[in-house]
């Protein structure tokens, strides 16, 4: 064995015997046990709690009620002047105004109860008699809905049952 090799053996042994202290210099020396109350955490939780409560109460104010026509009419004056969403079917023969124009007046109904809707903007092209729509807007004191948005629930055939040989366009 040459000197160099011997030297290496020695060094190797010496190095191998090193413990890991310098290797993980930042390694935790077990956390300092906290004494007393953890105020930071407590305050954090408190702040979070207050914030959540605030959001909830704010949310309660901001929520818009969602009715079907019969529910809305039933509520009567209680919801006049409020911002609501009303769901109903467009009644046949009640549409006033022509396609391509702005400013329409029509009636939506559900369970035999109906309500007039005034809409100042352009109606979506899927809007027609007999479809189900959702109108967002404000009710005036006559119970007429002044809508600022009309959504048409379109009967999509891309949902529902897969097609079959007898009915290739199922759920159309």
């Amino acid at each position: 064995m040459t000197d160099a090799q011997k030297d290496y053996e020695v060094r190797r042994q010496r190095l191998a015997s090193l413990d890991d202290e310098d290797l993980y210099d930042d390694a935790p020396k077990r956390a300092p046990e906290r004494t007393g109350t953890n105020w930071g955490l407590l305050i954090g939780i408190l702040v979070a709690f207050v914030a959540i409560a605030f959001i909830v109460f704010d949310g309660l104010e901001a929520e818009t009620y969602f009715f079907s026509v019969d529910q809305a009419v039933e509520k009567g004056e209680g919801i006049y002047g409020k911002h609501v969403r009303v769901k109903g079917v467009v009644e046949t023969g009640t549409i006033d105004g022509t396609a391509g124009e702005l400013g329409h007046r029509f009636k939506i109904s559900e369970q035999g109860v109906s309500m007039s809707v005034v809409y100042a903007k352009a109606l979506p092209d899927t809007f027609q008699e007999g479809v189900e729509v959702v109108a967002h807007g404000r009710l005036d004191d006559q119970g007429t809905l002044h809508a600022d948005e009309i959504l048409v629930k379109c009967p999509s055939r891309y949902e529902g049952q897969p097609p079959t040989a007898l009915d290739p366009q199922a759920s159309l």
Partner: protein
Amino acid sequence: MTLLFVFLALIFTAFTLYKTIRPFLGSRQGQLRVELLDNELRNIELLVARKTALVQSLRELEYDWQTTKISEEDYTRFKKSYERQAIGIMRRLDAIHGGRAWEQNIDDELNRRLGDINQEPDPNQLLMDYYLEEVDNAMDDEALISKQSATTAEITCEKCEKPLTADDVFCARCGHRVAHDTTEQSDESFSENSKTANKSLRPEVTQ
């Protein structure tokens, strides 16, 4: 076209499935051979990964220091701690690789180089210097690094006295141009050498 995908996926699945079962198929002897936990390799991987991470930390620290995002005191403290850790890791790596020829070469080189300084080199210090050098090499950005070791401490910036590496052209702190003397040649050959050393390490590691 899609049939080709199906075919490829089928082959791949069959192959990996075979490989999944294979460790349990061979003879008892063969299984044992697989079972022999390659602790050394495992350690090397761990250490190399840690080293890379540390080098990255060092690099970022250096950068934060230059953009004055860290106080002087913190900088020195973190840097020392990181460097100590890096050296610890490399010591371990060497302990694993001990006796391999490349380390011998480096020692010879170190001795040859340090012979010029005409002082009895302390082997421990030598090793330390070498490691620091290697940390710097790994940091890839030699100029960003200042060295606090005995060999290079004598080169400092004339203006702000920041320690410099031999191959710095400008001071990293104040931008003052560094006047160079004769150390350049030997320095280059040295870093050349340590790079080959690095390479000889790599194949061991990735196998």
